[in-house]
């Protein structure tokens, strides 16, 4: 899947935010939200992206959609460099990429009907108006499991899961090649989560678009993704095929993350956590490997040098100095 030309290619993406203070709003520090991230997403592929809160997952998502301007690096979509597209070109290009947000309550305008929300992209791009638009919206409603007669309802008349379906319909309306899902099910009840995830999988089978699926719930990511990338403090520390990553995690952080997944077995003894402490501040990230402050296998080298992603098996890359750059077996 990844051998062909990738749909999305992100190269060395960096996003720094200035921390300003004092009366003169001088720059007093820098948040290293995303610090050199590179990855690809193939056509029809789902790349899962996991990591703790504040590790830069959402910033990656927003940079790809050009909702925030990256500090440096490049983003190619369908082979075209969209990093520096001007306003008009970007508008046209937005049709190929869409986003689904975490909070289905805040991501719908409370004063617009569901039908208007889903049909708005069609109007903005002049794709359909009047009856044709209504028909297209009804069709989209049907695709995401809503009834066409709900088009006149306002967002507050829908449940959380239904609202997220409206968001999905809106994202689908322009026929995108890439849909970025920024924790799309984190705000939903567990029973609803599965429905929405399965809907997303069905839609992908039908339309063949790609997902960049951001989540912090490993079970959800395991279910939907083809490949998984693990982020820590603005960097990808490990990226591999889903089965490979879950069966054979190489980076100590990934191992700790997998070990922390709760198991529904009351007799199972809780293992001593492989990791403790908190994520360091991205304002002054640790030198060398950002994980060295919490790593059980930390070596002298980790404090000085920054490990880069290196092959550790087929389609498996890890950024760790252990075992000559292949991580801990």
């Amino acid at each position, binding site marked *: 899947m990844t051998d062909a030309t990738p749909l999305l290619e992100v190269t060395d993406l960096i996003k720094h935010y200035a921390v300003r203070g004092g009366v003169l709003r001088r720059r007093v520090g820098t948040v290293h939200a995303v610090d050199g991230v590179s990855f690809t997403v193939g056509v029809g592929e789902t790349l899962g992206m996991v990591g703790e809160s504040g590790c830069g997952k959402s910033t990656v998502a927003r940079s790809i959609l050009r909702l925030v301007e990256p500090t440096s690096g490049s983003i190619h979509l369908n082979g075209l460099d969209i990093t520096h597209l001007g306003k008009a070109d970007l508008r046209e290009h937005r049709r190929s990429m869409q986003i689904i947000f975490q909070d289905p309550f805040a*991501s719908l305008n409370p004063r617009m009907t569901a039908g208007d929300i889903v049909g708005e992209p069609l109007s903005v791009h002049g794709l359909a108006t009047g009856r044709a638009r209504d028909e297209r919206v009804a069709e989209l409603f049907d695709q995401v499991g809503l009834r066409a007669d709900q088009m006149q309802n306002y967002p507050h008349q829908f449940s959380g899961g239904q609202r997220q379906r409206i968001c999905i319909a809106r994202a689908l309306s322009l026929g995108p090649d890439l849909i970025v899902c920024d924790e799309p099910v984190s705000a939903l009840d567990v029973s609803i989560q599965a429905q929405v995830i399965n809907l997303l999988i069905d839609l992908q089978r039908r339309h063949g678009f790609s997902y960049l699926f951001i989540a912090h719930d490993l079970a959800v990511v395991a279910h939907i993704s083809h490949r998984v990338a693990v982020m820590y403090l603005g960097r990808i520390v490990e990226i591999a095929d889903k089965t490979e990553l879950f069966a054979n995690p190489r980076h100590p952080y990934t191992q700790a993350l997998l070990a922390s997944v709760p198991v529904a077995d009351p007799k199972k003894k809780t293992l001593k956590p492989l990791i403790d402490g908190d994520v360091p501040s991205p304002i002054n990230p640790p030198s060398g490997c950002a994980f060295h402050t919490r790593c059980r296998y930390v070596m002298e080298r980790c404090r000085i040098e920054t490990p880069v992603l290196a092959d550790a098996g087929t389609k498996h890359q890890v950024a760790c100095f252990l075992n000559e750059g292949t991580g801990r077996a």
Partner: protein
Amino acid sequence: MAVINYDSELRRAGAHSTRGWRKFAFLAQRHLLGAVGLVIMVLFVLAALLADFIGRYDPLSVDSLHRLAAPSAQHWLGTDSFGRDVWSRIVHGARISLAVGVGSTLLGSSIGVIVGLASGYLSGWVDLVFQRVTDILQALPLLVLALVMTAALGPSLPNVIIAIAIPLIPTVARVIRANTLALRELPFIEAAKSIGMSETRIALRHVLPNTLAPLIVLATAQLGSTILTEASLSFLGLGIPEPYPSWGRMLSESAAEYVRTAPWLVIFPGIAISLAVFGTNLFGDALRDILDPRQRG
């Protein structure tokens, strides 16, 4: 969340029907004072609309035989020093008060909305410039600013409306700007960006409708103070020019000379002003309570 949906708030608060009469019944039940305010406002609007029918006399016609007549069956509220019927003048004065109140509130709010939206949405130097101008305007009291404006423009109905509207701009702009800043960060604005909407369209279609609830409350509350400002301007001789009946002018003409000999000339215009301001303030307060979830028990 910063976004308030008027209908859903009402419904959540217990009003299940959106029909007008039911809404009023609900208002009367939950906010008695607000309902009273609404009734007072409606009465004043009716008085202004029907002034020619319920006025009984021409408010401008002079009758030297009945100067300073006390309230009686012929002249319900008495007559003034020119023999003009006070009741007719008050009823016709409602037109002036409403015209100035509604006109200046609408004008001031519209400009305030534009300034506030631009300021909050564009931010950067536009915001900086607008906010500093707003600061300067806000440093001066409403009446003082209106006084200077009418003195400069000359007294006439449109000029009075403009003079009272301009000092309203900063307050409205502040509220709209604060709301815009909060709304700007919500995902549905990001979603609008990601479907390729232009900034102007986002501001008008997504931001503006969500700032309307606080705007309505603010405008209702301002209505009372604009009526009061017009009365004050007229009292000071800078409002609506003679011979049109303005409550403020009716007061100023009679206050010094006739307050002892013909107190009805002072009492009734005074009551009219107080009632109008009282009514709009009551209704404005009730609206604020209904629309603000934190105010509900």
